[in-house]
């Protein structure tokens, strides 16, 4: 079936359902892809896409960033990080500002580059900012294991990793009212579609693991609407070219070898049990939390006007924020959702027209 055929089917299903339907696309890459492709403008009036907390930079609380900045300010460290973290405002400063004041910060595409930085600079402590969900976690696990095996003692990770399924469950316990989940495609490459089965059966919520091309998302929405219309709730895979039921078991084993599950705080949501990872004791020599115990970290505070938290839970949109497009812009971000390449506010700023914003 062509894309146009799938879109027609979406319209027919939405008309049969006849009531408002809220689909949450959990992943920040879906948020951006939905906007960039114009998908939102194609959806029937009664189908709305909510953006969820699937932006790892956005859900990292200020306390983590404050610690990263304190580490960066030490003269003996190099902080290596994915690019979006650099401009996120912490409680008092940002990595970008720290860099302007002399801190050594390297932007990397891959955690493997951070490990190479440690090999090339044996007299400095290289700290990689471990932010990311299950798609990214195996790569960081690999660097920790490699550092341990090759005795790269000056490499460590400041672990801020979080995992997706517990956050999805926390959202279902909230007040938003989600009718279906568009499950993250590449997280699911690692964890497998079966990871959503407990959630799906406990809460009777349709789940479709969806890819990121416009075609993938239209078909994913069609599959969700069909389940909703038929009053079904199962886990289906739209993104079959990359996702299997079991996932990448080598990657899962590596994650389990290096990390263990713990409670962790999500910006705007609070602590979600068993939703984070910490580095196992066996690899504590590469755990920045264990290496840097005398950091001067300011008292954590969030900007009072910032509603990133409610946006991440799908309860409000950026249009509801008094700072959006005024004090908070991509050039002068107040909250993480505006800085990150996958942040909801960044997506709305770039793509949504104020006079015809989708609900």
């Amino acid at each position, binding site marked *: 079936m062509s894309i*146009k055929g799938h879109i027609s089917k979406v319209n027919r299903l939405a008309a049969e359902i006849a009531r408002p339907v809220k689909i949450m696309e959990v992943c920040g890459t879906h948020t951006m892809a939905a906007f960039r492709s114009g998908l939102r403008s194609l959806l029937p009036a009664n189908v709305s896409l909510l953006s969820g907390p699937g932006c790892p930079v956005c859900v990292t609380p200020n306390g983590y960033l404050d610690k990263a900045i304190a580490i960066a300010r030490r003269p003996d460290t190099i902080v290596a990080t994915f690019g979006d973290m650099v401009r996120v405002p912490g409680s008092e400063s940002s990595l970008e500002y720290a860099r302007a004041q002399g801190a050594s910060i390297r932007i990397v595409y891959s955690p493997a580059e951070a490990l190479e930085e440690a090999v090339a600079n044996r007299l400095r402590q290289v700290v990689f900012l471990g932010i990311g969900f299950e798609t990214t976690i195996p790569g960081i696990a690999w660097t920790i294991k490699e550092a341990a095996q090759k005795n790269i003692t000056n490499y460590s990770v400041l672990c801020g990793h979080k995992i997706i399924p517990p956050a999805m469950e926390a959202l279902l316990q909230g007040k938003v009212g989600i009718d279906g989940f568009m499950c993250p495609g590449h997280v699911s490459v690692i964890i497998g579609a079966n990871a959503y089965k407990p959630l799906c059966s406990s809460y009777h919520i349709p789940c479709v693991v969806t890819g990121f091309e416009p075609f993938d998302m239209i078909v994913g929405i069609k599959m969700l609407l069909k389940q909703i219309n038929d009053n079904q709730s199962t886990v289906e895979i739209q993104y079959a070219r990359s996702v299997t039921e079991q996932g*990448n078991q080598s990657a899962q084993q590596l994650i389990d070898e290096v990390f263990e599950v713990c409670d962790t705080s999500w910006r705007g949501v609070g602590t979600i049990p068993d939703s984070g990872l910490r580095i196992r004791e066996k690899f504590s020599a590469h755990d920045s939390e264990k290496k840097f115990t005398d950091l001067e970290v300011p008292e954590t505070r969030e900007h009072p006007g910032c509603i990133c938290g409610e946006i991440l839970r799908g309860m409000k949109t950026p249009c509801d924020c008094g700072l959006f497009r005024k004090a908070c812009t991509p050039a002068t971000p107040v909250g993480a959702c505006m800085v990150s390449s996958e942040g909801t506010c960044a997506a709305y700023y770039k793509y949504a027209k104020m006079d015809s914003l989708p609900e």
Partner: protein
Amino acid sequence: MCLATPAKVVEIVNDDAVVEIDGIRRSAKIALIPDLVVGDYVIIHAGFAIQKWSEKDVQEYNQIMDEIRALDQQGSGKV
């Protein structure tokens, strides 16, 4: 950051591979995919291959991209 790009493996040395994306060559770590051989297609995320694609998957992807490009060229968003 859930981006992953399809690429063809053109060279393998231990845990490292050279992959090709639209004619551009980059290095990638392949420790997460056992039994990879030159000629396989993978998707790359943050410098790591995270999944292998079959020939059928590559064909499906190419068909999707062809359809999107054709719609783009028609220049119409109306359906």
